[in-house]
């Protein structure tokens, strides 16, 4: 399984902070994103932002990165700390 996390306005819009997906059906970040967008129109729109950031196992990554079982994938909007 892969653990998927959402933060800040992304979490608020989706109404979900965490979910689990099957690792066989989600070999990389792009496929995972496509599968999440396929849920419905609202997910599709919310995850469409070009500025969406992704971290794999707590390190900033990108959409071409591959995934394996046990990974923690986080999606979030551009960060605004500091």
């Amino acid at each position, binding site marked *: 399984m892969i653990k998927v996390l959402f933060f800040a306005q992304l979490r608020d819009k989706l109404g979900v902070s965490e979910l689990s997906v099957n690792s066989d059906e989600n070999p990389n970040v792009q496929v995972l994103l496509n599968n999440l967008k396929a849920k419905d129109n609202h997910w599709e729109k919310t995850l469409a932002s070009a500025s969406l950031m992704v971290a794999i196992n707590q*390190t900033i990554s990108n959409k071409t990165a591959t995934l394996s079982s046990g990974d923690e994938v986080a999606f979030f909007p551009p960060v*605004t700390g*500091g």
Partner: protein
Amino acid sequence: MIKVQSENFNQQIEYDRLRQASHTGAVVTFTGLVRDINQGEQISALTLEHYPAMTEKALADIVKQAQSRWSLIDTTVIHRVGELQLLDQIVFVGVASLHRGDAFAACEFIMDYLKTQAPFWKKETNSQGESYWVDARESDQSALNKWHKV
């Protein structure tokens, strides 16, 4: 030293810790505060959300990059999370080095990367009591460009 905490921090204590190392000739500090106005709105409070499992790791990686680029004696990064009030301190970055050039560059580099790579998100409450997530500033993204030319 890297700390992510809800408590306030004390400038003097952090500065004193940085200046005490042998050979230190220069200390540069940056402190970020909750402004009373942002993007034209009068602000009354600020909440900082973060990604707890990742935050310290991200900051440690940024500090490590700075240490590999400049000659640094000591470095401190403190970032607060949770509910903050007007004029509260949000973030402290302090760098001690032999000469000033290294401390200035490293301190600004750490802030520029923190602003775009560390998983913190600000939610502001305005004077009407409305809350909204703060938009990322384009200028924070472009601030990174200067470090690619060096």
